[in-house]
C-alpha cells in the first residue's frame, strides 16, 4: 500500500511530507518504546506511536523510515515537524487508538517485520 492508503484507512491528517504520499510501504511497527523500535533492523517504513517528542523523529530517521503516524490525535510541535521535514518524512496524525490503527493496517495487508538484527 502507499502512504496515501494509510492516510485514508486511518482517517489521518497530513502534517508534513505531503509530496511523498505516493511512496510504497511494505511493513510497519507500533511502539512507544524507541529502543524497541531500534532493535528491529529489518525494513520498517512506518512507525505508529503515541509518544510525542523529538526522539520519535530521530529514531525514525535513524531507521530510514518514511512515515510516522501519531495515534490518539497527538500533535507534534512545530520543531518536531521541522525536524521531520529535513529528511522528507511524512507525518500523519489519526484519532484512532494504537490497537485499532495497527489492526486496520494489518488486516489490510501491511505486515510487521519481526526479525531481530544479527
Amino acid at each position, binding site marked *: 500500500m502507499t502512504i496515501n492508503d494509510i492516510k485514508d484507512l486511518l482517517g489521518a491528517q497530513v502534517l508534513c511530507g505531503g509530496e511523498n504520499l505516493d511512496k510504497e510501504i511494505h511493513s510497519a511497527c507500533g511502539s512507544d*518504546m524507541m*529502543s524497541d523500535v*531500534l*532493535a528491529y533492523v529489518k525494513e520498517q517504513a512506518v512507525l505508529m506511536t503515541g509518544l510525542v*517528542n*523529538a526522539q520519535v523523529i530521530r529514531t525514525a*530517521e535513524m531507521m530510514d523510515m518514511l512515515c510516522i503516524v501519531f495515534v490518539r490525535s497527538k500533535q507534534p510541535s512545530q520543531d518536531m515537524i521541522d525536524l521531520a521535514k529535513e529528511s522528507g518524512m511524512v507525518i500523519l496524525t489519526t484519532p484512532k487508538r494504537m490497537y485499532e490503527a495497527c489492526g486496520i493496517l494489518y488486516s489490510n495487508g501491511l505486515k510487521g517485520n519481526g526479525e531481530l538484527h*544479527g
Partner: protein
Amino acid sequence: MVNYMAEPLVFHFEVDGDNFTSAGQASVQVKKNLRELGIDPETIRRVSIAMYEGEINMVIHAHGGVAEVIVSDESVEIILKDTGPGIPNIEQAMQEGFSTAPDNVRSLGFGAGMGLPNMKRYTDYMHIDSVVGVGTTITMKVNY
C-alpha cells in the same frame, strides 16, 4: 565505500547532558556526513543507530560527554566518553531489559534496557571501559 583515504577522517561532537530534546543531534549529523562520503546505507544505519543509543545513554545516565567518529578505509569507529557515574556491573548492564533509568525517562520512550544490547548487535566490535565515580568510555566499530 570510501576510496583511498590518505588519512582517517575524524568528527568530534560535544553531547549536552542537560537537554533531552537535543539528544541525538550528533548521530543525525554523523549520518549526514557518512552519506556525503558515499558510505553504503547498511553501514550508515548500523553506525547511526549504535551511536544514537550511546548518545542517549550519555544524556540520560551520565550528564553528557564527548563523541568522536573516525572514518577509515576499513571501518567507522565511534568513541563515546563521559565523566558520569560509571557502570558498576557491565555484564548486568549488557543484559536485555536491565535498566536503572527512572520512570520519567521511560515516559520519554527510553529506559527499556535495550540500548547497550542494541549497540552490541549493530556493531562488529564493542568495548566498555567504565570506572565507578570516574566515567565511561565506549568504543564501537562497524566494518564495511
